């Protein structure tokens, strides 16, 4: 199908205001009477609040409110931005009399200025009964370990007494039998680190009561609707009395798939009857928001001599930190999206997710897959090596194919029974072909090692993700027509920077037969836009886009009805395009969209408008083949990535330029995850490197040559054939780089991030030096 708007590299619809510094982000407003809010963080990893007295703080001039657990309702909830009923434990409280990690909420203050708020924090008197803490996930389930969630009113925790937030066990076939059949079985252990999202805009929420005394929350969020529902529950006011508005967001990546500051900001606004803003400092962002789940993974895979993978087993220990946000769902993905990459007859996934007194883990781009693919793709590489097969060939031989049914997904939905997945589009093999060509795989695999201390190698990884959560993610959209032939598109979807507003507008424009400038979009405002679960699980293009397509199709029919009357023909004889409707085969007989609008509004007295809801019962996987060329400095252990190729099958790329941008950004985060990023804690659970100075993300000079390739396919379940692209490329770099290091210097690093001192130590141990 040839398209005129979809598939084009059109400028982002919000682009001009971004490049001119327009007032578009949460903090870009001035509100009279705005108060500055601040949270008092716990200095202890685990403690009970024996006494808390805010008298001196309240007495400070300029302090308007101080809230402790005594002042607010106690409503167990999860902060995870998930559809109700959320599969995450209800183990969190607006304010509590117990603190469970360094940085946990103790109290909150609203004051006339930031300086006064900060000073007030120091005047809140708190007496703690410091409890033993468990910081190491391997100690969390041990007999005698301190119980982190001993409160009786928390629910949905798998086993409170053993600090187990969640437990998952799923098996297809019998791996025990499967391994017996194998000629080669490899089992290895992997460890992955605590990565932080580092969105350049920290979390920020501003709340106020409008003239109708409704609570308005303007906030940097990926999930306005979940946030509204959760705030209603926590603050004990009806949903209809809350409005959540999402302006431009300065990056989310999963860290904002969370109700993080909105409840406390709302509580302060209610207590003071004035607008209140809470914005995290960068330090607070590092340890008081969310991180990726650190995991220890045991990966066991077995194959026959002929190169067929027969059985794969993954056993995971993960920590969710002090609260169980996204605990079972992230880890569920580690199994469900990773193991089925290969057509093993037998698969088993077992996972314990434990609490520790550490910063809270949550959603982060990839959502459990980066960890899982690091383990699986490293073991697959070892298998290939042992079987003396080329790593790309070995993957080609075993990878999932068009028409396959993934039965593991049926067992691992978002916290409940999922639905079996059918692969209806699969560009993986094109990704492998084109990616291999781009990195010059054949030549570099067989190249002679260079003399000297710098050694080069190439490695590959195959990864996939999902596109929306089957049977759970859903969206809706509404369109109405204006006099000038333009359409207002109201979509609940959250554009968090990836260009969703533009992509959805392109879909609407294509369906309606108009140019992109004829679509004006409003998104993410719970008063104005209809429901959308929010931006996560790579759902926006396929699910929100699906809703937009449906709504646009319905509106198109209304347009055609009016045009048919104007042109004295039947709607079936008409076609839309280029802002006009014309008779098929006779372009001269046409009316413009403007004509139609004016006719409808002022003659027919009809507002052309309609909406639609949409969800899928499957989650079509986007595929990604990642190739890395590295240079290892065997004297310093430093690993330099020379070239990174990420070849992705996103279905149709609605806006190829934006799609490439997603690949490039995801890869950059993947590179940091692999080589430099880790939030470190000391022996008391305090953050050691909560700043950009000490926690290094990749800057412009650090980036390798990066090639993004779009190997498009046509997905029946997606609007115009689209699947998704925003997460999958982040899964590839870690294993591709680890495998490239092996090719370069013959050592296997199984811990992320890969530090130079670790490389040096392995080189020494392997006798390479």
């Amino acid at each position: 199908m040839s398209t005129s708007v979809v598939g084009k590299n059109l400028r982002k619809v919000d682009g001009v205001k971004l490049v001119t510094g327009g007032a578009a982000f949460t903090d870009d407003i001035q509100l009279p009477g705005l108060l500055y809010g601040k949270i008092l963080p716990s200095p202890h990893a685990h403690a009970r609040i024996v006494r808390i007295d805010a008298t001196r703080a309240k007495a400070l001039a300029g302090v308007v409110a101080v809230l402790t657990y005594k002042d607010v309702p106690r409503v167990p909830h999860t902060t995870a931005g998930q559809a109700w009923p959320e599969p995450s434990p209800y183990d969190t409280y607006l304010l509590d009399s117990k603190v469970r990690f360094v940085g946990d909420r103790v109290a909150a203050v609203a004051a006339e200025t930031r300086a006064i708020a900060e000073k007030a924090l120091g005047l809140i008197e708190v007496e703690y009964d410091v409890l033993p803490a468990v910081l190491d996930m391997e100690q969390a389930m041990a007999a005698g370990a301190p119980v982190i969630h001993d409160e009786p009113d928390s629910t949905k925790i798998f086993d409170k007494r053993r600090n187990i937030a969640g437990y998952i066990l799923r098996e297809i076939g019998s791996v025990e039998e499967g391994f017996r059949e194998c000629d080669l079985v490899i089992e290895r252990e992997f460890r992955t680190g605590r990565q932080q999202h580092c969105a350049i805009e920290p979390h920020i929420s501003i709340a106020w009561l409008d003239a109708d005394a409704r609570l308005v929350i303007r906030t940097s969020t990926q999930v306005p609707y979940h946030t509204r529902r959760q705030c209603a529950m926590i603050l004990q006011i009806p949903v209809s009395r809350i409005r959540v508005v999402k302006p431009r967001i300065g990056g989310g990546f999963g860290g904002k798939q969370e109700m993080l500051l909105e409840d406390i900001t709302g509580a302060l606004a209610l207590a003071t009857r004035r607008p209140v803003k809470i914005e995290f400092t960068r330090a607070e962002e590092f340890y008081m928001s969310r991180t990726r789940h650190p995991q220890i993974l045991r990966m066991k895979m077995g194959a026959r001599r002929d190169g067929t993978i027969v059985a794969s087993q993954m056993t995971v220990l993960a920590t969710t930190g002090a609260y169980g946000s996204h605990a079972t769902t992230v880890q569920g993905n580690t199994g469900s999206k990773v193991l089925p990459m290969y057509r093993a007859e037998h698969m088993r996934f077992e996972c314990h997710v434990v609490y520790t007194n550490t910063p809270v883990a949550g959603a982060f781009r990839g959502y459990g897959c980066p960890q899982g693919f690091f383990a699986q793709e490293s073991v697959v590489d070892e298998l290939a090596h042992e079987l003396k097969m080329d790593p790309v060939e070995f993957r080609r031989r075993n990878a999932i194919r068009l028409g396959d049914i993934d039965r593991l997904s049926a067992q691992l939905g978002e916290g409940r029974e999922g639905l079996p997945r059918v692969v209806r589009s699969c560009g993986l093999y094109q990704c492998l072909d084109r990616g291999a060509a781009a990195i010059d795989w054949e030549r570099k695999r067989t190249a002679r090692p260079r003399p000297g201390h710098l050694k080069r190698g190439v490695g590959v990884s195959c990864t996939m993700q999902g596109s929306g959560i089957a049977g759970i993610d859903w969206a809706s959209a509404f369109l109405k027509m204006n006099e000038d032939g333009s359409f207002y598109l109201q979509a609940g979807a959250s554009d968090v920077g990836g260009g969703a507003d533009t992509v959805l507008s392109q879909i609407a424009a294509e369906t309606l037969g108009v140019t992109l400038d004829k679509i004006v979009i409003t998104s993410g405002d719970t008063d104005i836009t209809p429901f959308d679960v929010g931006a996560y699980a790579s759902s926006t293009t396929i699910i929100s886009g699906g809703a937009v397509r449906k709504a646009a199709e319905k509106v198109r029919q209304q347009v055609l009805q009016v045009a048919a009357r104007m042109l004295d023909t039947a709607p079936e004889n008409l076609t839309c395009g280029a802002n006009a409707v014309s008779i098929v085969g006779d372009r001269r007989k046409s009316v413009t969209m403007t004509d139609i609008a004016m006719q409808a509004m002022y003659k027919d007295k009809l507002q052309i408008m309609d909406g639609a809801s949409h969800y899928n019962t499957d989650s079509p996987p986007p595929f990604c083949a990642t190739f890395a060329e590295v240079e290892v400095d065997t004297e310093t252990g430093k690993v330099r990535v020379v070239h990174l190729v990420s070849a992705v099958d996103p279905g149709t790329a609605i806006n190829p330029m934006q799609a490439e941008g997603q690949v490039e950004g995801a890869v950059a985060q993947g590179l940091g995850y692999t080589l430099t990023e880790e939030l470190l804690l000391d022996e008391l659970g305090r953050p050691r490197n909560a700043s950009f100075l000490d926690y290094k993300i990749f800057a412009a000079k650090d980036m390798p040559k990066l090639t993004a390739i779009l190997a498009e396919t046509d997905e029946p379940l997606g609007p115009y054939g689209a699947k998704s692209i925003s997460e999958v490329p982040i899964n590839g770099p870690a294993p591709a780089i680890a495998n490239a290091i092996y090719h370069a210097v013959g050592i296997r690093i199984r811990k992320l991030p890969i530090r130079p001192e670790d490389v040096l130590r392995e080189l020494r141990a392997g006798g390479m030096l």
Partner: protein
Amino acid sequence: MKKLTIRLTVNAESKEWSIAPGDLLLDVLRREGYFGVKRGCEKGECGACTVLVEGKPINSCLMFAAQADGREVLTIEGLAHGDTLDPLQEAFLDHGASQCGFCTPGMILAAKALLEKNPNPSEREVREAMTGNYCRCTGYVKPVEAVLAAAKACRRAR
């Protein structure tokens, strides 16, 4: 608290502001409505608060407002001329170099300063000039492309 008066030029307009001695330039600029100057880390690491002072990129979170007295400051709001965007802004739009856009003002200003000094930079020089502007969305690929394209367009225009 004794207030100071500073007189400076912001985007070619004379300004006279009353500030406290310890006020940071970032805070004062945002207070005065220059929302394009972003707060990302307040430690001079992310570059989201970049402004040009006499044409040189600096982190406005690391400058006391008092130090701006008598100086010429350019923020992103001062780059376009009415409806005419700067070639860098056009290039960012054409190349998809802005995703969330939070780092964009700082990046564009850093690039502007580079091109004023060096109209024909190499890719390496562009990366060097922009390494103080952290971006978590783009992997820097399209921003670097956009700057090189803008440089080419400017050279052709001359």
